């Protein structure tokens, strides 16, 4: 660390703290210590702190953009042979991700003011958002695997609390539970990987780990297990198959948190995966698993999204699908591509989530078959959906198009089959979005959407702002030097992307939507529809397998405890009582016999002791 670092960089450690401080300052309101006023001051303080984090990040970004990346490290814990640091890597990529997180957090907090207008626990909500934001900011800036793990787990906790925000509703209870436990499974596997890495390499900083991995001293088996452990954590965080269930259930939580979850939380998981990528190279099997997971999630997720009737679930499955593409990009060692996909996905998906949040807020309905004709009633919301959708799929000049065209070009030289996965996912996503659009915004007004009006300004403002951001995303991307090859893709790649998007658009446009059709009478079609609507029956599969096994073992342990272990103890007690009862009959009252017994016992004891001790 050089002494001439500027003040913003020297104080970079503050950035994750802004969010945590926001949580702390909200506590007095959240605990109800100020009874008379509403919770607004807590909300404003949090927004202010997020603004500060964003501004601070911008200053650092500017400086790093001009004079190169900086690393900061502070010693934290040193015991025996273990050295743990708090370390930040202020690189361009990390800072862009940070700005994405704080920026989207800022927008969705303003959005929350409108969406959560009448919420009684507004301060608690903002406290949790602050916690959420702090953990995410720390994850993207982290320069050590330990720190990343530390903050990812905090993210698990805050996801649990945010999903469980409306804890009195039965669906929320199961959603929060599943969100926590699914992520926790991934986290425990990741912890195994982290502990193993720490034991074998003795270091935790990413750069030290890369150096260690380059020496390649592990056996193939150890490397594979290690790789799988490291992949498992992000698989849970990014809602990838088979740990994807939580994201769609998590939609029971408040929408502003869903905006963040669908866009930047999954990004955090992917960024951690990106950071461990050089270590994963040790294990071809782990790479293969990532490719399989990514492909299944991409195609499966976009298929399942087609069959959902809950407007939020259509989006969450498409998030799973896009993260699948990111997994493929990371597995194929194309970090630029992964980042490009992550960035364009995050802004577009956040905008889509805001838009459907507007729909939900003004109709109080999430079922797309009961909505219709909102296009003319909610112009800003409709525009947001259109722009968000266009930014996500390969629509000509927007971010999604650039990312996908770039992917096709890069994949064509590495692995042609995955080109098909990308194009198929793009087509299916386009089809799904068109389906939702037709259901919700086109057609006749149905009963539930007849009285809908445009959202209030607190929601409209961030929505419009983000619409503009999605529109200028291509310009932002071109300005970042590291991505200057952005426009260097051949025409055929562009044609393929646009073509697949158009195909999806057409398919979605001609898809019959009659309401009677929402569950088909044709048995074959219905079977497919149910398969997708119930997410390939994954939940039922889990209930029959893992949940049953754990529950069975726990019942067995409990039974064993009551009857065998405790039963044995009680049996010994009863036996000694019974033998005492019968022994009392042998008491003769003659002192000689007592002395004899005592002597015999002593002799026996001493013999035993001396036999052992010699």
């Amino acid at each position: 660390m050089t002494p001439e670092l500027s003040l913003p960089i020297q104080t970079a450690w503050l950035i994750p703290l802004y969010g945590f401080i926001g949580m702390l300052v909200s506590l007095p309101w959240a605990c109800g210590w100020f009874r008379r006023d509403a919770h607004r001051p807590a909300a404003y303080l949090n927004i202010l702190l997020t603004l500060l984090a964003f501004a601070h990040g911008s200053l650092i970004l500017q400086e790093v953009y001009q004079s190169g990346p900086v690393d900061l490290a502070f010693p934290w814990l040193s015991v025996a042979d273990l050295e743990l640091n708090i370390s930040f890597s202020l690189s361009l990529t990390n800072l862009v991700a940070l700005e994405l997180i704080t920026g989207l957090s800022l927008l969705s907090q303003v959005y929350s003011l409108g969406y959560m207008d009448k919420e009684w626990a507004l301060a608690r909500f903002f406290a949790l958002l602050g916690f959420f934001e702090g953990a995410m900011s720390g994850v993207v800036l982290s320069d050590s695997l330990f720190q990343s793990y530390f903050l990812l787990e905090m993210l698990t906790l805050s996801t649990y609390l945010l999903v469980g925000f409306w804890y009195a509703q039965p669906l929320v209870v199961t959603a929060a539970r599943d969100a926590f436990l699914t992520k926790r499974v991934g986290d425990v596997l990741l912890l195994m990987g982290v502990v193993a890495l720490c034991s074998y390499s003795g270091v935790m900083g990413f750069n030290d780990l890369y150096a260690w991995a380059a020496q390649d001293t592990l056996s193939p088996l150890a490397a594979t297990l290690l790789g799988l452990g490291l992949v498992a954590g992000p698989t849970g965080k990014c809602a990838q198959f088979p740990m994807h269930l939580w994201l769609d259930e998590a939609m029971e939580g408040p929408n502003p948190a869903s905006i963040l979850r669908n866009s930047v939380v999954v990004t955090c998981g992917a960024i951690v995966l990106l950071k461990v990528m050089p270590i994963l190279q040790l294990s071809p099997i782990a790479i293969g698993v990532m490719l399989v997971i990514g492909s299944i999630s991409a195609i499966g997720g976009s298929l399942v999204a087609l069959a959902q009737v809950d407007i939020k679930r259509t989006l969450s499955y498409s998030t799973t699908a896009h993260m699948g593409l990111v997994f493929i990009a990371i597995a194929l060692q194309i970090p630029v591509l992964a980042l490009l996909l992550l960035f364009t996905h995050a802004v577009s998906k956040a905008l889509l989530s805001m838009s459907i949040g507007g729909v939900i807020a003004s109709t109080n309905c999430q079922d797309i078959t009961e909505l219709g004709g909102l296009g003319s009633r909610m112009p800003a919301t409709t525009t947001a959906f259109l722009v968000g959708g266009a930014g996500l799929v390969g629509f000509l000049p927007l971010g999604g198009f650039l990312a996908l065209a770039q992917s096709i070009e890069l994949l064509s030289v590495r692995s042609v089959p995955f080109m098909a996965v990308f194009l198929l996912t793009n087509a299916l996503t386009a089809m799904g979005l068109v389906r939702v659009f037709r259901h919700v915004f086109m057609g006749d007004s149905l009963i539930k959407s007849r009285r809908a009006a445009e959202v209030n300004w607190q929601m409209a403002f961030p929505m419009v702002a983000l619409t503009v951001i999605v529109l200028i995303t291509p310009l932002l991307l071109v300005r970042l030097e590291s991505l200057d090859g952005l426009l260097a893709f051949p025409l055929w790649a562009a044609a393929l992307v646009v073509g697949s998007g158009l195909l999806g658009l057409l398919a979605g446009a001609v898809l019959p939507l009659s309401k009677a059709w929402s569950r088909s009478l044709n048995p074959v079609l219905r079977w497919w529809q149910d398969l997708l609507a119930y997410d390939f029956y994954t939940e039922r599969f889990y209930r029959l397998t893992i949940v049953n096994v754990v529950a069975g073992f726990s019942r067995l342990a409990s039974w064993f405890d009551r009857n065998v272990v405790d039963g044995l103890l009680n049996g010994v007690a009863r036996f000694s009582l019974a033998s005492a009862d019968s022994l009392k009959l042998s008491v003769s009252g003659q002192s000689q016999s007592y002395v004899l017994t005592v002597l015999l016992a002593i002799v026996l004891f001493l013999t035993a002791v001396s036999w052992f001790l010699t």
Partner: protein
Amino acid sequence: MLLSLLLLIPFLGALALILWPGSPSSARLRDVSIVLLVVQCLASFALLLPFDAADAGLQLVEQARWVHAIGLDYALALDGLSLPLVLMNGVLCLVAAIASRTIENRPRVYFALLLVISGAVNGAFLAQNLLLFFLFYELELIPLWMLIAVWGGANRAYAATKFLIVTAVSGVLILGAFLGIAFVTGTMDFSLRPILAGELGMTPQLVLMGALLIGFGIKIPLFPFHTWLPDAHTEASTPVSVLLAGVLLKLGTYGLLRFCLGLFPDAWQVAAPWLAGWAAISVLYGSLAAIAQTDMKRMVAYSSVGHMGYVLLAAAAATPLGLMGALFQMVSHGLISGVLFLVVGVVYAQTGTRDLNVLRGLLNPQRGLPLTGSLMIIGVMASAGIPGMAGFISEFLIFRGSLQPFPLATLLSMVGSGLTAVYFLLLVNRAFFGRLAIAPGEVVNPRILNRVALREQAPAIALSLVVLVLGLAPELLSNLSEAATTGLSLITGDLS
């Protein structure tokens, strides 16, 4: 003199309470014992001033001849292993006294017994003579038995008797082993050097160590010697549960480190792979059994079985890092289970039940227990090893310190750590989420629960804060004890 003060304050205090003239009210007695325990707690923290953390040896030694003929001498000393435990004893005994709000039945005896326990535990952690340790170890037994048997729940007689008998067996085994050691070495002084291979064959070493292992294993408790613990916890009142989980179980793990590992390093090394396996079984068994529990206190009790298994795992590995993790786990488990038992106690006092089949929606802001629920979430998350709290640090240190010697046992124990999240999440989800209900079918109009005053929650809040502080700044604790745990470890060379 400072160390003797830690014994004199509680013992003389107990005597004073017994001899207190007239018939003082329960509140008055509680105030007096709180003052005494505050003084004792301050005296414990005063130890930090003369204590030299860089010194791995015994410090502040105090010696006097006592019943020298049978080898019983008065010898106290402090090192990095006992200091954190003495501090924790000071804090938790104070918390227990503060939490004893509603003692109407013979309060004089109750508070006197509380003080005796606190002094005896201090004595056991500080004793430097095998017989003296044993004396204190047994001295704490009787008051605890009475605290359960007199002030316990409905089935207290069964639980108390079981506790007494089982723990007495533990005492007999330990005494037998100590006598065996004295027989071999000719001294009861336990500044004594470890018993080395040349001195005694491996079989007798293993026998002596085995007796100690089972003796302390009952106290810790480890599977299959654990069944007294859930019963004792269920019947004990809240403050007694706090003491039992927080302080008394630690006597077992302390003995494990100090006597089994410390006195028989060679035999320990031979037995270590088996011990690691035993630890993994204990962890998994405790966690699985906890999932099936419907009584909140039993669930927390079984979680103790699992979490104490980590200590055995780390002790088996006996790496410097692992032993630091073991000590960290003792402290964090003491604090976290303190929070959990206090919170469960509030729930029980307010609703009259701890049954997870009937409790629902206690987080309800108007009629439920929102602050209690929030503390419960903090407690269970700390116990499940969420970073930012002390439990995570100890688990990470233990796993990192044990993975290389015993990879399989460590990985299985990590699965146990995942299971902790399962049962505690079920607890929170069942009892605190959902619609408020306290009895079966009572969803429509449950009775309104009393507001719990903030000061009643103060002990749990304070303990939670300590858990957070230790989780964010673990060096506060690790710096105190690093020299001692490194000195105890079997691997003296550097690992890297």
